[in-house]
C-alpha cells in the first residue's frame, strides 16, 4: 500500500508541533543537573530555572518554547522502494502553513529584497535512501535565527589540522556563543566540498547528544572540545557559570588534498527537532532522533 499525501501532511503537522513546543529529554536532563548544582553561579542557576519553567509552561500549554520559532527545515528521506501518492511537497508545505496558524508560530521568513512575509515557507531537503526500504523518514529542525546567523565556513589548511580546528572552534565560541542562547549545541561538518561540509554540520546536530562519533579519535576530539568550551565559563546566556556547551558533534567525509572545508554551526539550548518514520501500511513511528539523517549521508 502506498503512503498517502494526507498521512505525510498529518505527520509533518504533528512533528512541527512537537518540535516547537518540546525539547529532547536528554537535553532537558542536562539542564536540570546544571540548575540543581551547588557549584553553579547564581546568574546561571537563575537562567536555567527560568528555562526549565518555560519548558514546563510550553509543554503543558502547547505553546512554542521560544518566540523565534525558527526557519522550518524539513528533511525527507525516501526509501528506494517507497511509493507515495500525491504531492509530497504540497503536503509538507500545507502542514507547516496550518501549524503556523494553529500553534501559532511566528512568520519568520521574509523575501530578502522586499521584506514581504513568506508565511513560513518551509525549506525541504530531500534525501534518497538506497536501502530497499519502503518507508519514508521525516525530520523537522526548527532553526532559531540567533543560532543560525553565527555559522562560519572556513577552507582550512591541512597542516596541523586538528589543533587549528580546535582553535577555530574555541575562538568562535568566544566571539559568538553569547548571541546564540548558550548553553549551545555545536555541529561541525568537515570535508567534501563547501556545501557538503555545511550540510554535515547541520546533520551532526541531529545526532543524540550522548552519542559520540564511532571513530574513536573523533569521539575523543568531541569530548575534548566539550571540556575546553565549558572551561571558558561563558555560561547560560553569557552570564557566567556552566554549562556553556551541551554537545559538540563532528561529522566528516574525505576531503580534497589541498584544503579541508570546515563548517561550524551553532544551535541554541532550545534544540527543536522531531522525527517520524511512515511505513507503507501507514503505520507511523515517532522519534526524537532518527539515524538516517546523521549517518551515511555521503560516500
Amino acid at each position: 500500500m502506498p503512503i498517502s499525501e494526507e498521512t505525510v501532511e498529518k505527520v509533518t503537522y504533528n512533528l512541527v508541533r512537537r518540535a516547537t513546543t518540546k525539547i529532547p529529554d536528554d537535553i532537558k536532563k542536562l539542564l536540570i543537573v546544571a540548575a540543581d548544582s551547588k557549584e553553579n553561579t547564581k546568574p546561571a542557576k537563575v537562567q536555567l530555572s527560568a528555562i526549565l519553567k518555560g519548558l514546563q509552561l510550553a509543554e503543558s500549554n502547547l505553546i512554542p518554547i521560544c518566540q523565534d520559532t525558527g526557519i522550518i527545515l524539513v528533511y525527507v528521506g525516501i526509501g528506494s522502494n517507497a511509493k507515495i501518492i500525491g504531492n509530497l511537497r504540497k503536503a509538507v508545505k500545507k502542514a507547516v502553513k496550518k501549524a503556523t496558524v494553529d500553534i501559532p508560530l511566528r512568520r519568520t521568513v521574509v523575501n530578502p529584497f522586499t521584506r514581504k512575509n513568506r508565511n513560513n515557507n518551509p525549506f525541504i531537503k530531500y534525501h534518497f535512501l538506497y536501502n530497499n526500504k519502503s518507508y519514508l523518514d521525516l525530520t523537522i529542525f526548527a532553526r532559531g535565527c540567533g543560532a543560525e546567523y553565527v555559522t562560519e565556513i572556513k577552507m582550512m589548511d591541512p597542516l596541523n589540522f586538528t589543533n587549528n580546528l580546535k582553535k577555530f572552534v574555541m575562538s568562535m565560541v568566544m566571539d559568538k556563543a553569547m548571541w546564540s542562547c548558550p548553553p549551545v549545541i555545536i555541529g561541525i561538518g568537515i570535508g567534501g566540498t563547501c556545501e557538503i561540509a555545511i550540510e554535515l554540520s547541520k546533520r551532526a546536530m541531529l545526532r543524540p547528544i550522548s552519542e559520540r562519533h564511532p571513530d574513536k579519535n573523533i569521539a575523543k576530539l568531541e569530548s575534548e572540545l566539550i571540556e575546553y568550551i565549558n572551561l571558558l565559563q561563558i555560561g547560560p546566556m553569557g552570564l557566567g557559570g556552566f554549562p556553556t556547551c551541551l554537545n559538540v558533534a563532528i561529522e566528516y567525509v574525505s576531503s580534497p588534498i589541498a584544503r579541508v572545508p570546515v563548517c561550524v554551526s551553532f544551535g541554541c539550548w532550545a534544540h527543536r527537532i522531531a522525527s517520524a518514520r511512515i511505513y507503507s501500511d501507514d503505520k507511523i513511528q515517532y522519534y526524537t532522533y532518527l539515524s538516517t539523517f546523521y549517518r551515511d549521508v555521503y560516500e
Partner: protein
Amino acid sequence: MIRYNIIRIYQHFIGMSMNNVIHLKTPISVDDLLNLKIGDVTFISGVIFALRDEAEKRIYQRLSKGKDLPMDLKNAVVFHSGPIVKRIDNDWKVIALGPTTTARTGVILTKVISLTGIRGIIGKGGIASKHIKDMKSRCVYFSFPGGAAAVGSAATIKVIRRYWQDLLEPVWELEVKNLGPLVVAIDIHGNNLYDLILRKARSQLTRILNKLK
C-alpha cells in the same frame, strides 16, 4: 592536562553580588536604578514596550527629524522582542515573549536611549562595549533568558496598544506583572557583566591554546 575542577573555578563567581530578588515598577527613574549592581536578579511590573530593530530605527528617524512619537518612552522599559501575538475575537493574546539579540541595534539604540529617556533595555547578549559609555547614568541593561518565552507570556497581563502595524513587526505596549528573571548585565554606572565573563574566558582560552601548541 586540564582538569575540570568545578569547585575551584566557581569559587570566585559565588562571591559576586548575590542580593535577593529586586522588584521594579514602571515608570522607572534614574534613582531607582542607582543601587542595582551587575548580577542582581530583578522582576519588573507595569508597562513595557516590545519592539525590534526596525521599530527602533523608525523611532530614531522620527526623533532626529523633530517629529513626535505615538508612545511615551520617557522612563520606560523596552523589551527587544518580536513576540508571537494571536488575535482572539477583539483581543490580542501574547503567546510567546522572549528576547532577541540586542547587538544588532548598536549605535541607534544608544541614540534612542539618550533622545527618549528609556531607563531599561531587556534583551540578550548585551551591547557592544564601545556603546556602553553612552548608556552610563541613563539606562540599565537586563538579560532575559533566551528561549524562556512561555515565562515571558505568562507574566503578560494584556496588550495595551499596538503601534506601527505597517512594520514587519510592530511595537507592542504590554502590561506585565513580575516579568523576569531579569539579570542586571550592564548597570547604570557602566559595569558590564558580559565583559567580566569574557575577560575571564579569554584568559582561560589563552591557557587552553597554550596547551595545544
